[in-house]
């Protein structure tokens, strides 16, 4: 017998039903919550992925760009399928398929062969290289490898090959997004700054946002203003391409020449301050024009801030169409506020989404009661706390940094809320707590078209109010006693 653990051989025992019932109740208890929160090493149901996933998203935001994973092919398959499932769209990317011998010899041969094949088969205008674990652990020198690739003719001389180190054992997908975006912009803008030249354009960075509807909203808002726009890392067409009988491997993205010229822009705004910290810091030091970092514009006030900033930077009035739109959004809020007022929410997600959810809920008179970030920072914690402190509806709400969705489950079971805002992964906790889950974040694997419905801007406010309030009304209709089942709500 090969029993390497030296286990005692036993008869199979079924767990008695009363023991199952005891544990089932126990995991919902305060005592369990304390034990759960005492965890030091085990992470259960984290609400974050690893860096390369975000890097791939950024790469898809540029015209003709092939994302290229330097590492195992399995990594690429994981990132691709995650994006496929969320957007229900293709997510073409290659890898250089490093294997065991890479640990001995390094990954240069794989990278060179991979670049050559990728260029021949997929004819990209740019290849964006990023790393998964293996080359990061063994210390591959991408700078040298890519320089050698060029000198040995594995890639055409004029093909941009930006690259980013995106170790999965540090940060989350938002940091990978930041690293890849920075590298792409550095590569494309190199030598393109022209003294005294101004494109007159706005550069807008959406941040690590997985909602194609949001990108389309940004473009519409700029159009309403009449502001010429370069939306950097524009995934709206990449991940929302038409079904018309032809497949285009590169369906969208920011034009490379626009990205290159963005360094001479009139102003650059990032709307993902946490997901673009490094990129924005470099832009501030490098780009011409004004540089502004704003929160992701979720809710009325954060959208107001964006519009006022646009008006100021481009010396324009906020157009009447957007003023009316604001009025319609506020109208939707005042009409529906009674269905959300005082309701308690658990919210989780990436920092840029979180600040938005919290702002929106407070504006509605709802309470962001449990706020959880699976990989947060002191900075975002401080920002969220300040938002809670500034609102009557923030009283008693708590922030949980670096906690996971198993912690969240304990929170919603011991100190109940009316709903959760997050992504598909929260559905288990929501089901156990018998409350609805609003899937405004990433990823959404179990609903259709969520990524096409914006959550930013005034339109986003209307969408969120509708989704949340109508769900609460559905629940009322489905669960109320017959004598309270009535025509109007």
């Amino acid at each position, binding site marked *: 017998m090969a029993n390497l653990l030296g286990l005692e051989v036993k008869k199979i*025992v079924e767990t008695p039903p009363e023991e199952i019932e005891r544990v089932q109740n126990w995991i919902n208890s305060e005592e369990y919550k304390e034990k759960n929160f005492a965890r030091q090493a*085990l992470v259960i149901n*984290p609400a974050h992925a690893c860096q390369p*996933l975000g890097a791939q998203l950024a790469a898809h935001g540029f015209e003709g760009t092939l994302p290229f994973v330097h590492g195992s092919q399995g*990594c690429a398959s994981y990132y691709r399928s995650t994006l496929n499932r969320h957007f229900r769209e293709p997510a073409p990317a290659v890898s250089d398929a490093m294997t065991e011998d890479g640990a001995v010899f390094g990954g240069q041969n794989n990278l060179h062969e991979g670049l050559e094949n990728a260029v021949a088969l997929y004819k990209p205008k740019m290849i964006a290289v990023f790393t998964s674990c293996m080359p990061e652990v063994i210390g591959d020198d991408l700078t040298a490898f890519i320089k050698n690739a060029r000198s040995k003719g594995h890639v055409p001389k004029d093909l941009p090959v930006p690259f980013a180190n995106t170790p*999965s*054992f540090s940060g989350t997908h938002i940091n990978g997004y930041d690293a890849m975006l920075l590298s792409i912009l550095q590569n494309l803008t190199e030598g393109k700054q022209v003294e005294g030249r101004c494109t007159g354009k706005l550069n807008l960075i959406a941040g690590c946002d997985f909602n194609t509807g949001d990108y389309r909203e940004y473009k519409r808002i700029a159009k309403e203003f009449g502001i010429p726009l370069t939306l950097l890392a524009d995934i709206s067409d990449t991940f929302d391409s038409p079904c018309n009988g*032809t497949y285009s491997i590169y369906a969208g993205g920011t034009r490379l020449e626009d990205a290159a010229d963005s360094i001479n822009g009139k102003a650059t705004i990032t709307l993902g301050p946490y997901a673009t910290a490094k990129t924005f810091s470099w832009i501030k030091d490098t780009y011409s024009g004004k540089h502004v970092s704003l929160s992701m514009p979720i809710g009325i006030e954060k959208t107001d801030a964006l519009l006022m900033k646009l008006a100021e930077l481009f010396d324009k009035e906020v157009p009447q169409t957007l003023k009316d739109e604001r009025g319609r959004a506020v109208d939707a809020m005042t009409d529906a506020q009674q269905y959300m007022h005082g309701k308690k929410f658990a919210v989780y997600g990436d920092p840029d989404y979180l600040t938005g959810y919290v702002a929106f809920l407070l504006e509605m008179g709802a309470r962001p009661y449990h706020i959880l970030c699976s990989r947060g920072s002191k900075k975002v914690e401080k920002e969220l706390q300040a938002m809670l402190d500034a609102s009557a509806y923030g009283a008693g709400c708590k922030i949980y940094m670096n906690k996971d969705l198993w912690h969240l489950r304990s929170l919603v079971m011991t100190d109940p809320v009316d709903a959760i805002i997050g992504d598909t992964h929260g559905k288990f906790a929501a089901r156990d707590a018998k409350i609805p889950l609003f899937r405004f974040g990433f990823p959404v694997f179990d609903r259709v078209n969520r990524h096409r419905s914006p959550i930013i801007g005034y339109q986003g406010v209307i969408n969120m109010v509708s989704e949340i309030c109508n769900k609460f009304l559905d629940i009322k209709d489905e669960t109320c006693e017959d004598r309270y089942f009535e025509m109007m709500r």
Partner: protein
Amino acid sequence: MSDKIKNIDGITKESTQAMIDDALAAYPEKGKKKRAPHLGVNDQGSGSACVKSNKKTVPGVMSARGCAYAGAKGVVWGPIRDMVHVSHGPVGCGWYSWGTRRNLVSGINGVTQFAMQFTSDFQEKDIVYGGDKKLKTLLEEAVGLFPLAKGISVLSECPVGLIGDDINSVAKQSSKELDLPIIPCNCEGFRGVSQSLGHHISNDTIRDYIIETREFAEPSSPYDIALIGDYNIGGDVWSAKALLEEIGLNVKSVWTGDGELEKIAATHQVKLNLIHCYRSMNYMCKVMEEKYGIPWLEFNFFGPTKIRQSLRAIAERFDDTIKENVERVIAKYDPIMQAIIDEYKPRLDGKKVMLLVGGLRPRHTIGAYEDLGMECVGSGYEFAHTDDYDRTASEMPDATVVYDDPSEYEFEKFAHALKPDLIGSGIKEKYVFQKMGIPFRQMHSWDYSGPYHAYQGFEIFARDVDMAVNSPTWKLVKAPF
């Protein structure tokens, strides 16, 4: 095995070879040389592989393959419902494979089943100083929080092997201290060339750590069998198990769909192993045959023709009681199956399907399509070996194309040339072909449907294939202007 040579109008050895040559033309010399042996023309009568396989993926070509970790976590371990499966290393691998295979489980989440994401979430310091200590702590935490878990698997991700951690000794020590099976599985993603080595490593791990450590409490019977290589995608096990029970067999354990650790550990006591997915579990069938004298039999539960053949082959291994049961069951289901065929075949007759999947499906599902009047014009695997392609030759029509670990470029080229009415492949391929207006079904996950196994599954399979091929939405793809 089909004895009849199947031909397809318009497909000849020459036309298929020309299509292959065309797909290879774009490659640089080295890439072409590497890829050429993996694209072949089927010789149905030969009964042997027409392609090379189980080789390294060519860099840069856009392969659909996963890694050894994916084969271990996603395929073998993940479906065992009463164990905590720890993805040991950085956060990503476990996150991507969390709930994305559709291996359904019974029980109560977090109480008796653990279809969740457990990870050590390696940080920079764990890479520098090693993760063994962290592992030891997290095992204690897991036992404290999930007291009804029957065991814990520790599934290594790439960095663990590269930094030289010793999870095996941590597992051994913790197993003693915590009085629970803690199973170390060295399935780092960089090992081997695909998911396949992950299956093999996991089988070896079961051999070394699990089998024979439990015994069934009830007395044995001559009808005790194990269902091997069914992962309960969309409920497949529940459908297959019900059919095996209907013919009078005792399904003592399932590897590993909706699986239970202790029953898997006692499988050395069964009389016959019935294996559906040969690729992922043949290793342990062979071990159990050599060590415990348990014979094994491959079977196919896709579509009534193959189910009928398989049930009779299974009956051959048992006495007259089972043989009579099988005939009775076949007689019961034949008219039900015929009614399904009568409903769908008129709409599907002569339609062409192309497949690219893993495991057993590129060959095992062909018969089910044929039951519906369809023909398979191309098939291939992500991670098969020669023995899989040997088994495929007789199932595929003569002169059709067979592709091993094809690049997306090759797959697209073949689809353009063959103009299939349906493609059955994975999520990475789905939207590529749907943009082209080609109907598609995910054949790893049953496209969020299922089960597809056994009689119960065929009805759902037939409905799904029909709705994919004949959906009125495809008529709208081309605009009238």
